[in-house]
């Protein structure tokens, strides 16, 4: 009897593989000899990809973003974390900025806003974790996290969530920190972590040979969507991160079969300092 989950009538875990069973899990491969940007996202629009912006909310009908699919707010009521539909938009502008950058890359992707920031500092780490857990259960392809927590008591749970997202095919794209303090989840290997470079070209991004920061994307003097339908210029890893989330949305819309491991490989191979930006 095979123990492979996909061959069995029952949903058994694939803890091991019998010697003769290698062929039975042959995976279709359409990888080209050389992974180029044209192969990775040429002609892609983000259509069919579901992106989650875990942040302060997204302003409704901002001209650079347009309509979004859904908007929820995460709050803490007593000891319980509650996720509910919400139409109050963005409380501080940060999530709107991130959504605008993702939309600029992937005009046809679905965007869902999960508000975990902005309703006061207290309890914010529990709300962040609750929002992330909800997003992973919803099965988004990409989750943009231009934020981090330093609370050590939440690190284990955050680590579990990052690993579970990775195996459920949800790619977490998280802002790295340029300060010598331990913060999370960007340090985890299961996420894509992003720092800033100084080039003004939104398609220039670098694979870092010295992690934990894995990629550098445009983060200096970026024109971002701002509250009231405005735009403004800002700098920070918060804005480099949605560049990689947006590119990931493009890649996933052209190659929906990719796992987070494969998506990260495609990002690596198409990085400016690896594939020469071709």
């Amino acid at each position: 009897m095979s123990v492979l989950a996909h061959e069995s009538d029952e949903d058994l875990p694939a803890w091991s593989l019998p010697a003769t069973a290698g062929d039975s899990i042959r995976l279709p491969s359409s990888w080209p000899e050389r992974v180029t940007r044209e192969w990775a996202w040429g002609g892609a629009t983000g259509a069919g990809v579901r992106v989650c912006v875990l942040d302060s909310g997204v302003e409704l009908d901002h001209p650079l973003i347009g309509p979004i699919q859904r908007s929820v707010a995460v709050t803490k009521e007593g000891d319980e974390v509650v996720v509910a539909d919400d139409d109050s938009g963005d409380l501080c502008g940060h999530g709107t900025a991130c959504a605008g950058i993702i939309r600029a890359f992937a005009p046809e992707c679905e965007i869902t806003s999960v508000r975990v920031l902005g309703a006061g500092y207290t309890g914010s780490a529990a709300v962040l974790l609750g929002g992330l857990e909800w997003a992973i259960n919803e099965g988004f392809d990409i989750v943009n996290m231009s934020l981090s927590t330093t609370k050590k008591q939440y690190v284990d749970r955050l680590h579990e969530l990052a690993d579970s997202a990775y195996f459920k095919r949800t790619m977490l794209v998280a802002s790295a920190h340029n300060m010598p303090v331990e913060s999370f989840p960007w340090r985890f290997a299961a996420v894509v972590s992003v720092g800033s470079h100084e080039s003004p070209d939104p398609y220039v991004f670098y694979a870092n040979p010295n992690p934990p920061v894995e990629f550098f994307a445009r983060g200096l003097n970026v024109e971002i969507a701002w509250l009231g339908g405005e735009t403004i210029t800002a700098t920070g890893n918060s804005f480099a991160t949605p560049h990689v989330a947006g590119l990931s949305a493009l890649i996933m819309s052209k190659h929906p079969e990719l796992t987070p491991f494969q998506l990260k490989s495609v990002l690596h191979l198409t990085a400016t300092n690896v594939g020469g930006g071709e």
Partner: protein
Amino acid sequence: MTDLRAAVAAGVMGADHAYRELLQATVEVARAIFKAKASSVFLLDEETDELVFEAVAGEGAETLVGQRFPSSTGVAGWVLVTRQPLVVDDLTKDTRFSREAAESTGYVPRGIMAVPLLAEDKVLGVLEVLDRPQDSAFTLAEMDLLGLFGNQAAIALELLQRARRARAALDGESELARFAARLEDAPDETRAAGLELLRSLERLLG
């Protein structure tokens, strides 16, 4: 014991003052290095969920210290909740921000650089530098420099908070300090009995 208490109190009072000066020096230097109009440090008051102006250099230095606003408002609020440093230009475009800033501080900056002040796993507050000259383009090297100032300010802020907690304890806000003071003022016989009780407690605690 009175002497000891007085000595500790004097030390704590002195420390409080010195750490305040260190914090003030940090914002003064940050302002000078970035050639900015102002620089300030905000302390997060976790009990009220507010940010409090703790030190200010330049514009608003006379009036802002002690002023408070909700912890998730403005650029300082972004930085506090996201734990991410941030630089924004042309804030005057945003009428809502301009109005709020003008109402709370009387000064509307064009540009803000801000970093979270982090000590181990706690966020203590935010350091802001307002209106660096806009004729030169901002660089990531400046962002790193801002992070270094943020570290220094976080250390000063943490020391200041510790000194304040120590002073609060000496001021009699803590139960132990209150007992110690009453024991000291008690007649000899009562005091001896009290000390005996304390020794028993000490044995009990091992």
